[in-house]
């Protein structure tokens, strides 16, 4: 027995722009959705649950993560209820629910809170620069240390607990039984989806977009590796230097294209932009660009006289690592992959 909660759509609307009330249950969205099958009416079931405010059912479901937002449903909807954006909003809402700190929900719902957080972190970095009397060497030293610390901290205290929390809500609490061997057998799925977003190929509207996204993920992950572990900014290896340039260039070129689409609103996926979407693409763009320029400044030997450039780079990095990665859109990278993984586990258990 599920209790209807009519207040839920008002809450969900803080996570995205859609009009679930317009839905008159025609089922066109289900008819066009490639994820729909006889047992699971995609995305209608989630729309109906949202209208009825069945929070427990939505939390227990992996469905929102299985959708890669091709936007067919929104294009087809005769009532312009925008089911695709509703699924997107559910992903944001779920991200907030998985996050044990509750900060995700706060940042998603409040633009003021997000901007304040960005400003505070920027202020702290500048204060730190001033504290070090804007000397490049110590700042870069601590900057590099921060990178390593941030990765360890965010992963251990935020991302890992949240993934476990997600597993608890979607698998254990909702009573889905799965054996250890199934978890083991399905591991391949996790790796494949994490690095390839293979499922997005099912959305046959735009293969090029999938490709962009694919190289962006690879570029991002390898730049992370290059800066943190290969110490790109200090290395003398010409190979690593060029590798870093290529990776950072991929990031800002692809994200530039993404921003362009979001401005032009020419694809279903780029039609509705929540502040968290803007933060994500713009910060990723700036990450790539500032890293590229910083290394360029090093190579032409002007960074010493232009410490501000590194400070800017560090500000973007800190904001990214402490806001967007743990509490923002970055997490979809993990939740999607794990949702595919859990989904596979359930499939294996039949």
């Amino acid at each position, binding site marked *: 027995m599920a209790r*209807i909660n009519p207040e839920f*759509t008002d809450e969900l609307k803080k996570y995205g722009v859609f009009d679930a009330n317009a839905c008159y*249950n025609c089922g066109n969205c289900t008819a066009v959705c490639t994820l729909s099958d006889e047992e699971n009416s995609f995305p209608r079931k989630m729309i109906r649950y949202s209208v009825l405010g069945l929070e427990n059912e939505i939390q227990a479901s992996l469905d929102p993560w299985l959708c890669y937002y091709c936007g067919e449903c929104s294009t087809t909807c005769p009532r312009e209820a925008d089911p695709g954006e509703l699924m997107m909003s559910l992903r944001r809402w779920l991200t907030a629910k998985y996050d044990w700190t509750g900060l995700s929900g706060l940042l998603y719902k409040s633009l003021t809170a997000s901007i304040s957080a960005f400003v505070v972190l920027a202020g702290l970095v500048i204060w730190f620069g001033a504290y070090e009397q804007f000397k490049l060497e110590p700042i870069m030293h601590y900057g590099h240390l921060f990178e390593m610390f941030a990765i360890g901290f965010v992963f251990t205290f935020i991302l890992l607990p949240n993934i476990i929390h997600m597993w608890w809500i979607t698998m254990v609490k909702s009573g889905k039984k799965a054996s250890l061997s199934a978890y083991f057998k399905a591991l391949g799925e996790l790796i494949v989806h994490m690095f390839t977003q293979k499922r997005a190929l099912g959305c046959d509207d735009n293969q090029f977009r999938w490709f962009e996204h694919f190289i962006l993920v690879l570029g991002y992950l390898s730049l992370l590796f290059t800066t943190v572990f290969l110490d790109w900014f200090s290395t003398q290896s010409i190979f690593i230097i060029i590798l870093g340039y290529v990776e950072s260039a991929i990031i800002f070129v692809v994200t530039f294209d993404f921003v362009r689409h979001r401005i032009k609103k020419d694809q279903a996926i780029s039609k509705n932009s929540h502040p968290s979407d803007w933060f994500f693409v713009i910060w990723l763009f700036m990450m790539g660009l500032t890293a590229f320029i910083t290394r360029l400044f090093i190579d032409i030997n002007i960074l010493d006289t232009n410490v501000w450039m590194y400070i800017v780079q560090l500000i973007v990095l800190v904001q990214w690592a402490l806001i967007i990665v743990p509490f923002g859109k970055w997490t979809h990278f993990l939740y999607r992959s794990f949702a595919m993984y859990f989904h596979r586990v359930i499939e294996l258990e039949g």
Partner: protein
Amino acid sequence: MNKKIGVYICHCGGNISDYVDVEKVRKAIEGDDGVFLAKTTMFACADSSQKQMVEDITDQKLDGVVVASCSPKLHLLTFRAVAERAGLNKYNYVHANIREQVSWAHSDNKVGATEKAIKIVKATIAKVRNAEALEPVKVKSTKAVAVIGAGVAGMRAAIELAEAGAEVFLIEREFFVGGRVSQWDDLCITDETGKELITRLYNEVMKHQHVTLFTGAEIIENNGSVGNFEIKVKVTPRYFKLQCSGDELKKAIEVCPVEVPDGFNFNITKRKAIYHNYPSEYPQLPAIDMKNCTRCGKCEEVCKAIDFSQTTEYLTIKVGSILLATGFDPYEPPKGEFGYGEIDNVITLPQFKRVIHYNDDKLIWQGKEVKNIAYIYCVGSRQLNGDNKYCSRYCCTSTIHTAITAKKKYKGIHNFHFNRGIRTYGKAEVWYDESSRLGDIYLQSFEHDPPIIEHRNGQTFVKIKDLLTANKELEVAADLVVLVTGMTPRQDNSIGNLLKVPKGRDKFFNEIHMKLRPVETVIDGVTIAGASQGPKNIMESMNSALAAATKSFSLINSGELALEPTIAEVDDTACEWCGKCDEACPYSAFEKIEKDGKLIAKVIPSVCKGCGMCLPVCPTNALNLIGLTDVDVESMIDALIPNA
């Protein structure tokens, strides 16, 4: 005895001739007694064939005609008109059905079909041999109409009749006009209030000198029939003189010690024995409800207008037609249906509308603020087990409109519609859309799986297996449950019984033919309008009111009525009044008269419909049916079974 009979046998394209050998039929009857001319024709109903028949009748001076073709329902009137055009009395035309009764029914047996066709045509010829020229029965009619019920339908019909030039007697049982519509505030689509609508109609009614309005009035007796009804009206007094000051009335109501449930508010409030339903109600004079008044006299002391000396009046009125617009009763759920009468916060839709009327800022029921409202649809309509199989038509629209009204009037309202498929047909579809966009939640189930009401820990829950959520079990914590009750026929059917108006399956007044004769009843001169005929919204009631007014007017307009002559007749010498014919007659067409010193039965021509129910019960065989006499029938039987 007709000696020059023309017989036409129709091919009906191939509809008949594919299975019946029409030429063989023609040959078989050609030599029959009295047959002067026998022809086959491809389409008897075609213009050219009709012209040929007219020529034959006039040139050959035929005195009887038979067309063997389709069902008389289709073309009896066509060929009667042919006869009339040729100067032959239309009752000297007799129709034989060899399509529906022969070719279509026996397409597997051509030989048998032809034989049967021959017999049917022979029998028809036998009948036409005896056919006599008949003239319609003429009856004088009174140019006045009694309209029963001064609701929207009755008032609209009265206005229309008066404008056409009829004298109208508008008879209302209650002390106030307006019927059900006066009980409603905002109406759907137009956003006028019921009161505004009633005010407009009432003012228009009052403008017409030829409309006489009786309130507190009932018909208690009827004599006569179409054209000349003589009705006896009982008028109950209001016990008020015409002028009554507002202040005095207020005091009179205050001091009245009698309190009874207020039917106007569907018993959610109480009223005094002195009452008016709402300020500025029409007629603008309060009334005393003598059924509940104790005659304590307290009101008389404070209000000079009260006059207990008034007495019940009886009037006799003559009218040519009666138009029934007696409306409906809302369905009253039995105790326990969806918790009605057992759980405090379960009420009906009409009650809910009154609750909204009486609550301005906050929606309060039983002292508690209401936020979540659950509407259960089809209560008392579309019943699985129960007599009300019909859809009440108005309720989906009305509920959704009411839900929107509540949502806009009060803050924080959530509407939950537990329906069995929404039927906001026609223009009302926009309301369904609006309610949905305002966030109303629709939950649906089939009739065999209705929602369940539960009351636990001081909270009422409505549960449903929702079709729209893959039959998932859902529940709503409702502050108020509104049962969407349908329309039912008036419980008090005294007027229907008095006029012998038949009822249909659903126990509403029944029309003759729902499509072709939608406002007439089998009782000549009695027409029906509005929800007395079946569930209708205001628009539909207006349509039927205007149609019924027109139909009633057409009966009385010329001052004379021409009625079918094919009715029963009494052989005065053979009749020894026993009353059996009177008992058998469904229309009360017999009266007992004294003639030449003995009591005999007499047929009232304007009432008799020629059904023949009286004939077999007459012990002295004193009854005959004009146009279908015993001689006619016997000769037809002889033709059908020649060797019997």
